[in-house]
Structure formats: structure tokens, C-alpha cells
């Protein structure tokens, strides 16, 4: 069951915006102050470049999944180690989304709340989505994507009038160092393209439109920048005291008196987006576990993922700063290795392997351009 290029682009788009509107903006402000937007912009641009590095690797892998591809380039032992690294990365992201969703729901939607009752349906949903596979997650993403985008733009534009542009001045008051420090500390909130590793062999490139992915990445960056601009412009130096960018911009909270009638719809869509993202990272984690332990079937790996997320729900006190404990330098290292080093290593390993085999057997590469032309008239509606 493969997904098409448009669905992949939408998943990249959703992954790019997924974690950005929870606690990240206020956490970034602690070090990088009014220049926090730049940190997000730089890291998202780097993530964008890595999307294309990974796309190139995906095409080179042809029909091979990530495990087969890495095994052919790096050997079995290193592949297993890399899979552990990827599982860690996915576990961090899935855990963060799950925890973020919990805090968000607790803080904004309910006055009395028993998370245990609420986490069970979420886990059933995640288990179901992971079981149904990547095509299912991609299609759900396709369905909800534009509702989320419209919602985000709505709350950003609504709050735009209250912004004090002068609060962004002066630029680079403390130089570049705080920005670099901030980028490193909060690196694990980025690395949004790592999910693509688990999609090796599951993407049909015949429907590829060259500019589609670029459009979605630029769009994601612009939306994040717009929301950050509004957030920092609205709250200025009080940013670190604000917990959730998305609910605070819309001044939405059913537990407080400041209520906007339409914002709850937007906030609701954001919960949907988080649920889909949890499904995506749950799927990636389950796949990586499957490859690592060579598990036949999906059930066992899904159970592991669900149990992990359930356990994570009960770890730690219910405080918004949980993310600060969660995202230690360890998490930054994991992200750095998984997102920024691994694709480069794979590119090099692939090139060396191909050079060694010069004149001999080459790693089979699919010529998607040729395939595309051949199947010009054939339309795959089942993707």
C-alpha cells in the first residue's frame, strides 16, 4: 500500500507544523528573546533541505524499505544501531505530542479531568491508525489538512491587529550566540523529516510534481512564522509565561472567562492534527521496532507503541514544563544524529557502495521519470 507524492507532501507539511504551536514558542523566547522567530526559521529551512536529501535517498532505494536499504549500504549491525536511534527519535516525538495533547486538553478544555479515562480512546485511535497503515494516515491527513490551515490563519489574522511591531526591535541585541544556544537546546522540536525514513519503499513517485513539495514546505514555514510573529508581537516579554501558543493567541480556554466563540473550532482542529501526527509517529515507531526485532505482522509492534504511550501518560507530574525535562541535550543529540547526520551518512555509503560495484552489480535504482512517462495514461486511483 503506497502513498502518492501529494500525500507525502501533506505529511511533511503537517509534521513541520505539528509541534511548533504548543510550548515551543515560549521556550525559545527564554534564550533567543525577540529573535526566536529566526531560530525557528533557520531550523525549519534546514529541515526543508533535508526533506530533499531524504527524497533523493527514497528514490535511490527504489522498492526497498529502509531496513533493506540501510542493510545494503551499512551492513546489519550498524543498521540495527541506526534503527535504535530512530526508535528513540520517534519515541521522543510521539511522547512529546501525547504529553502536549494531554496538557493542552487539561488546561484548555476541562475543569475536572481524569487523563486515564481520556487517554484510552486516544490509544485505541492511534493503535487503529497504525494498524491500518501509512496510506490510511496519509489519507486522513489529506482530509483534515486544509481545515487546520484555515483555522491557523484565522486565529493569526484575528490577533494581528493587537501586535506591537516595535517590540521586535532592536534586532540581535545579544548577538548570535543566544540564537545558536537556543537552536541546540530545542533541536528535538525540529527534525521534522525523520518520519520519512519509515516511508522508504512506500511512496509512489509517478505522480511527482517537482514544485509540490517545495510549496508545502514554504507554506509550513510561512504559517509557523506568521503564528510566531503574532505570538511574540502580542505577548512580548511575557512570552515565557504563556504555555500554549495556539490557545493563548486565540485567547481560548473554556476554563477561563476570555472566550472567543469561533476559536474553539480552531482549537478543536488542532487536536485533530495532533491525533493524526501521533498516528504518524506511532506508525514510524512501530515500523522501526518491527525491522529491529524482525517481527512478523504488526500487532506486537503496535502493542509496544501503545503501551509506551500509555506509560508515558503516567510518567511525570502534570506540568507544562515537563517538556523541559523531556527535551534534554540527550534528545538534541538523538535528533541531530537521526535528522542531520544519518541522511548524509546514507548518501555517502550509497555512493561508496556503488563505486565499489562499478562494473559489477549496482544497487537497483528506479527511473521514475521513465516510469512516469510509461504510465502517463495509467492513473492509480487506489493510492
Amino acid at each position, binding site marked *: 500500500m503506497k502513498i502518492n507524492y501529494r500525500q507525502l507532501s501533506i505529511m511533511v507539511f503537517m509534521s513541520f507544523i505539528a509541534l511548533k504551536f504548543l510550548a515551543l514558542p515560549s521556550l525559545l523566547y527564554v534564550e533567543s528573546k525577540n529573535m526566536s522567530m529566526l531560530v525557528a526559521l533557520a531550523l525549519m529551512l534546514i529541515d526543508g533541505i533535508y526533506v530533499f536529501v531524504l527524497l533523493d535517498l527514497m528514490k535511490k532505494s527504489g522498492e526497498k524499505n529502509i531496513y533493506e536499504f540501510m542493510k545494503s549500504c551499512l551492513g546489519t549491525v550498524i543498521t540495527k544501531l541506526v534503527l535504535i536511534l530512530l526508535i528513540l527519535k520517534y519515541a521522543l516525538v510521539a511522547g512529546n505530542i501525547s504529553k502536549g495533547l494531554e496538557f493542552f486538553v487539561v488546561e484548555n478544555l476541562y475543569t475536572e479531568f481524569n487523563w486515564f479515562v481520556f487517554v484510552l480512546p486516544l490509544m485505541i485511535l492511534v493503535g487503529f491508525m497504525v494498524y491500518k497503515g501509512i496510506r*490510511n494516515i496519509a489519507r486522513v491527513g489529506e482530509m483534515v489538512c486544509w481545515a487546520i490551515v484555515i483555522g491557523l490563519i484565522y486565529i493569526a489574522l484575528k490577533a494581528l491587529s493587537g501586535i506591537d511591531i516595535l517590540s521586535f526591535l532592536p534586532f540581535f541585541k545579544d548577538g548570535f550566540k543566544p540564537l545558536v544556544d537556543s537552536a541546540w537546546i530545542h533541536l528535538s522540536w525540529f527534525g521534522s523529516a525523520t518520519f520519512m525514513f519509515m516511508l522508504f519503499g512506500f511512496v509512489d513517485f509517478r505522480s511527482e510534481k517537482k514544485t509540490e513539495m517545495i510549496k508545502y514546505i514554504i507554506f509550513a514555514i510561512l504559517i509557523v512564522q506568521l503564528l510566531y510573529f503574532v505570538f511574540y508581537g502580542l505577548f512580548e516579554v511575557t512570552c515565557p509565561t504563556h504555555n500554549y501558543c495556539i490557545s493563548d493567541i486565540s485567547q481560548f480556554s*473554556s476554563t477561563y472567562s476570555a472566550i472567543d466563540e469561533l476559536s474553539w473550532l480552531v482549537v478543536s482542529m488542532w487536536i485533530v492534527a495532533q491525533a493524526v501526527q501521533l498516528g504518524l509517529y506511532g506508525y514510524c515507531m512501530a515500523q522501526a521496532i518491527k525491522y529491529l526485532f524482525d517481527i512478523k505482522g504488526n500487532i506486537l509492534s503496535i502493542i509496544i507503541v501503545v503501551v509506551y504511550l500509555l506509560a508515558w501518560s503516567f510518567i511525570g507530574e502534570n506540568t507544562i514544563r515537563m517538556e523541559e525535562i523531556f527535551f534534554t541535550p540527550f534528545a538534541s543529540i538523538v535528533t541531530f544524529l537521526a535528522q542531520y547526520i544519518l541522511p548524509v551518512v546514507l548518501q555517502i555509503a550509497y555512493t561508496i557502495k556503488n563505486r565499489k560495484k562499478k562494473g559489477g552489480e549496482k544497487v537497483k535504482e528506479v527511473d521514475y521519470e521513465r516510469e512516469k512517462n510509461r504510465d502517463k495514461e495509467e492513473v492509480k486511483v487506489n493510492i
Partner: protein
Amino acid sequence: MKIDAVKTSEQIKKKLHDSGDLKSRNVQFFDTQICILYFAPITDNELLNNTLLYPLINFSDEIKGKDVVEVLRDKVLANQEVTLFSDLQSAIDKLLAGNTLILVDKADKIIGCDMEKITVRAVAEPPTSVVIKGPREGFTESLKFNLALIRKRVKSDDFVVKMLEIGEMTKTQVAVVYFDSIADKKVLNEILKRLQSIKIDGVLDSHFLVAYLQRNKKSLFKQVGDTEKPDILVGKMLEGRVGIIVDGSPIVLTLPFILLEDLQNSDDYYSQPIRVTFVRTLRLVGVILAVLLPGVYIALELYHYKILPTEFLITIMNSTQGIPFSPFIEILFIILLFEILYEANIRMPQYFGMAMSIVGALILGETAVNAGLVSPPAVMIVALSGITFYIIPGQASQFSILRLIGVIIGASLGIYGILLFCVFILSYLCNFDSYKSAYLAPTAPYIQDDQKDSYMRKTIDEMKKRPKSIANNKQNEIRR
């Protein structure tokens, strides 16, 4: 083997347990004894007299030395559909299907002649798809008549009718209709395979076949399309679908089926595109309201009442004051009342209808509100949801179940639960493919070209290509 007409006739009667409606007539045709067997209720008596009996009696040509069966087939019954049978069982099967059997003494074949009396009600506008503009013809219970209604619209050599017989006892005629060059062969073969493998005593209506045709038998969602109108059927076949017509049923099944089909209406194709786009959007909003409104109302009332604007909240609080039931029980009570009224209303004789409406709307609704048992907003919410169901009547039964689940989830988990429920339903439907066609196409997967006839509709001349959402052989081909 030579036939003894009288003896064979007795043999057939015995085999059919001397059925009271089986009639026989013995006629002397020159020096040959002929026995005619037919079932009176299903045989056209006038046709029998005019095309067989009178010509037999008045036949004046010399037949000496000629084969009587050949004379009958080629001269007497030249205008009729004649079949010759070598074995008795096939002849009996045809007799049961409405044929008249002609047993000629000392002949080696039995003649079967189609003299079936077609009793059909007049072609009328089907109650399930009433249109303001466009054709008003609807299918009837006669397969032959229904095929005639299609043939009237299709004059192409590409149109194919494959006849099957399903049902051990009823031996019901089933016609599989499609355009040979458009329908996807894999889909067609799978449908034929499934139909041919059906082992059932009787097929009394086309819906008897639905369970055999749907892939996910336990699913709540509709997987086989249906229509009562020939113009809709032909339109669907032109897009690559296959139609299944069952003798005795005015409802024709169509496959593959996608959810969007129920959002479309035949009226849409005879109206202004802008109006159609507006109406389809309304239908979509109607579906969301129908399924989610009561659940969301309970969630807001129980968990998130602060979300509501103050004036609105005060109105609701004033209305719900003094109601002895919790919002959940209150809504559940009204929903059940609504469902009971609906069931009673559609099954009771028409002359009771007016009285029923008065009892339902005035006595039960009004009195319950006045007595302080239920609140006016709750009645309004359920009524609104109930009405919006019938914007898409084809999905009403599924939606009523989903609404009930939505109410339970809204009462136990609030908005968060309802959102997860929505994602779950979407996720379930996204994986729900019907005969090579994605159930939620052209939205998921998104198919750009098919947006011309999805939630929005463009003019007919802009819809140049066949839809890609439905598996067919000519997806990229320009419609001729």
C-alpha cells in the same frame, strides 16, 4: 428419443405436483397430437390464443412429410421467441419461468415459447428520488421492462446485458449491465464471480444480493450503490460502474460505490452549477450537523459550557432549569422518541399519517416541553439533526447509529471525545475501498480532475474526462 405428447404432459404435471394453476390443452394438428402446457397466472392468454391456438386450428398449408416441430417454429410461431429442448428438466425450468411448452407427438424436441404475461405497474417517479427537473421515469418490478427503459436511452453496441439466474427455489433472473469498453474488467469479473457463487433459496429483492457483494460484511457503512431511475443508472454506467438488476425489484444496485454518490442528486445535473455547488455544500454541512449536533450539544452543556456566548448560555440555562433528567438522558429520550415516531410513521397506513404527526409533534413534543420533562433546546437540536438526516436519505440509517454513538461519546468524553470519534470514522472510511475505488475519493485520495463533480460542480462541457475515482477503462479518455 420420440415424445409421447400426452404421456410427457402427464409426466410434467406429476413432477409439478399437479399444480392447480398448470393448465394443459390438447390440440389435433392435422394428424399429429399436440399438447400445450402453461401456467395460467403468468401466461398471456390473449397472446396464447392469437399466436398459437388460432393459427394451429386455422393452419391450411399442406404439412405432409414435413417436420411438425419445424413447421411450428418457422411458420406458426415465427413471430415468437422459441426455444427447443432436448431434456425434460430444462423444459420444465422454462415452463416455470413463464414459457409455454408445446409437446408434439413423436417429435424429439419440446418447444418452449415465451408467452409470459408481464404484469407491471405504470412507470412512475420513484418516491426515493423525486426531482424538480429532469426525467421522472422510475424502474418497476419487471426486469424486462427495466431493461427496456435502459435500452431506450442507450443505443450503443457497447452496452452489455449478462443474464444470471440466482436462487435455488425462486430462480430469479438477474441482469448485470455495463458498457463493455468502459467498465473495469477486474471489477466486472469479481462482481460476476460473487454473483455466480451465491447459494440461496430465493432472491426476493435486489437487497438480498447486497450482503454477497459487499466486501466488509459487518460494516455499518453502505458499500453498494442503488438507484430507482434509469437516467441515473445510465449516468453511472457511463462513468464505469456496473449495474445489477433483479427481477421483482425496482431498485438497481451499482458498483463500485463511493460516499460522494449519495451527496449527489440527479437534479444536480439539470440545474445551474453554482446552485449545485451551494446545495452540495449544504448537504455536507447537513451530514455533519445530523451526526454530530446532539453529541456536541451534550458536550457543551456538560463540559464546556463556558465556550458558549453568555447570552446564549443564559437562554439555555433558563430553558433547562427544572428539567428532572440529565442532558444525556434528555437527548437520548428525545432521540428514541424521534426514532419510534419515524418507524411508526413509515409503516402505518397513510390515512393515519396526519393524526400521527399531530400526536408526535404536538402532543408528545409540546406537552413534554410544557410538562418540564424535556427542554426546548434539546427538542430543537434533535429535530434539526433528524431533519438533516434526510438531506441524504441513502445514508440516513447509518447516520442515526453514528449520531447515537456521538451522543454517548459527547456525554462521556466531551468535545475531545467527539473529535477523536471523528478522526476514527475518517480513518475507518479512508481505508474502505469498494472494488478498486477509494470510498472517500476524490477527497482522500485527492483527485484534482474529479473535483469538477464533487462538492462543487462544473458545467457538463467542462467535465471532459471520465472520473478517476471510479475504476474504469477509459479514465483519461475524452467523453465522446
